[in-house]
């Protein structure tokens, strides 16, 4: 009896707050879950497909659906340094450490983020490059690092590792959407997490996460693992190869 009472109470609160009681769910699929690095690898593209599934009884919403797809690469420590003038020289003086920041980050939406939700909500829910590169545990207002964080995002965008695409999600039908994700060749190996969030009228209705990985295969894989697991052998082999090439060149080009 008591349990039933609690359930009724919870349902009552839900109605009072006007919360959508899980009316929508997101179904997502990736075109591939693994990007294989081969010797002619120059980056790759994959596509996120998604479907908004509505429960039959819910009435149609007044606001259109919005989708935010955030892809986060493996986290690393990133250090941002700033050059300052010291006498006649320009040298690195200040630096800030950004622990556990994604080395790869893309945010794709179907329209500009500012039209989907408020700045306040974007900060809270980590939507957009500036908010998404923060770790979940980091305070939204990191003190005194503004210029460094802006520089981090700017430089990573220049390198093609960070991207914000406000036309990156396309609705194929009112409930079916797709979002292409470009993975540049410089993106590191490791596990990438994709977070898909459905918004309507500025409120998050449903979210779904999935992931893919970037791995070295074939010769790339064997060489990289040899370098790490048998460093002495690898080093000796490289040195021997170098000397062999040097010797070969003199015999091939020898004329006298």
């Amino acid at each position: 009896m008591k349990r039933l009472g609690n359930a009724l109470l919870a349902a009552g609160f839900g109605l009072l707050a006007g919360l959508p009681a899980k009316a929508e769910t997101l179904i997502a699929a990736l075109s591939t879950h693994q990007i294989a690095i081969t010797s002619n690898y120059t980056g790759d593209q994959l596509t996120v497909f998604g479907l908004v599934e509505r429960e039959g009884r819910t009435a149609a919403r007044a606001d259109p659906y919005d989708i935010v797809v955030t892809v986060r690469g493996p986290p690393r420590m990133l250090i941002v340094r700033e050059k300052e003038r010291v006498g006649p020289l320009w040298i690195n003086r200040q630096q800030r450490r950004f622990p556990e920041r994604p080395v790869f980050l893309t945010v794709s939406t179907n329209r500009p983020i500012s039209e989907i939700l408020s700045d306040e909500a974007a900060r809270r829910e980590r939507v957009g490059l500036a908010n998404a590169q923060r770790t979940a545990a980091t305070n939204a207002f990191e003190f005194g690092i503004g210029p460094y964080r802006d520089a981090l995002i700017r430089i990573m965008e220049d390198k093609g590792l960070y991207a914000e695409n406000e036309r990156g999600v396309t609705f194929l039908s009112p409930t079916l959407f797709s979002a292409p994700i470009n993975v540049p060749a410089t993106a590191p190996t490791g596990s990438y997490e994709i977070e898909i969030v459905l918004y309507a009228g500025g409120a998050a209705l449903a979210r779904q996460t999935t992931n893919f990985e970037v791995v070295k295969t074939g010769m790339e894989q064997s060489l990289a693992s040899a370098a790490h697991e048998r460093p002495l052998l690898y080093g000796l082999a490289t040195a021997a190869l170098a000397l062999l090439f040097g010797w070969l060149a003199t015999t091939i080009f020898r004329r006298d």
Partner: protein
Amino acid sequence: MQIYLPIAELPISILLVLGLSGAVGFISGLFGVGGGFLLTPLLIFLDIPPAVAVATVAAQVAGSSMTGVLTYWRRNALDLKLGSVLVGGGIVGTVLGVLFFNSMRRLGQLELVITLAYVTLFTCIGGLMLFDAVRAALRDRKGKPARLRRRAGMHPAWMGLPWRMRFYRSQLYASVIPIAGLAIVIGFIGAVLGVGGGFILVPALLYFFRVPPAVVVGTSLFQILVTMTGATVLHAVTNQSVDIVLAILLLIGGVIGAQFGGRAARNLNVGSFRLLLALLILSVGLRFAIELFLPPAEPFSVVMPESAR
């Protein structure tokens, strides 16, 4: 055509790398310098991580100096005895250099030390050599005899220190102390800057010890061959940053370039040889000076600690 580098973890154009390493190999064969001081900054400019660039260039330098050593060995233009003394001192210098390198890294000023060292070394050495080469050229024009030729019984004071040794090939009878001292300094600089040090060794042997130019290049290449082969293995063992695919590309371009460089060196007179080397070294120094003295377009930079790799 692009190829993916497994350790540097990025694709690179095969033709671009072959062209670059071929050009650097030509210069290396021409002047008897390893070419690392040109190739390493170029690779870093192509977005290859500095640690990978330094380590992989070591392998390339080892290969192209092997070619050079064999060529000069066949022409009997190599002083093995002088080379061995240089290698011995170089090993001591390298160990000291690695210790200094690590302590500067702990202090967080490694990048500044490297840039300042490049600027001062290259502009000083290049400037001095340029001054000397121009002076010699002017003297030649006036018809006076060049001062480079040694006269009997005339030698700088440092050659007269104890433990004198006779180096027949180099026409040198000098104390081991300044030679080993020079080798230690070069080993030290090489370890800190990630270069072979040929660009210091060649002028030092030419100017301070008056070793004949024909022998200088072969002997310098021998010293570079031994230290860079060791450096390749050390880099592979200590930080796993040698990229074998990049090394092969650099080797192919480098050894071919070095062949043509070595041939061109035979048709080059001493005066223009010194002038060209001076200009080359000076221009690299000025390139680094610009970075240090001009306000940067982007004052910020993002680095990933190498250990996270």
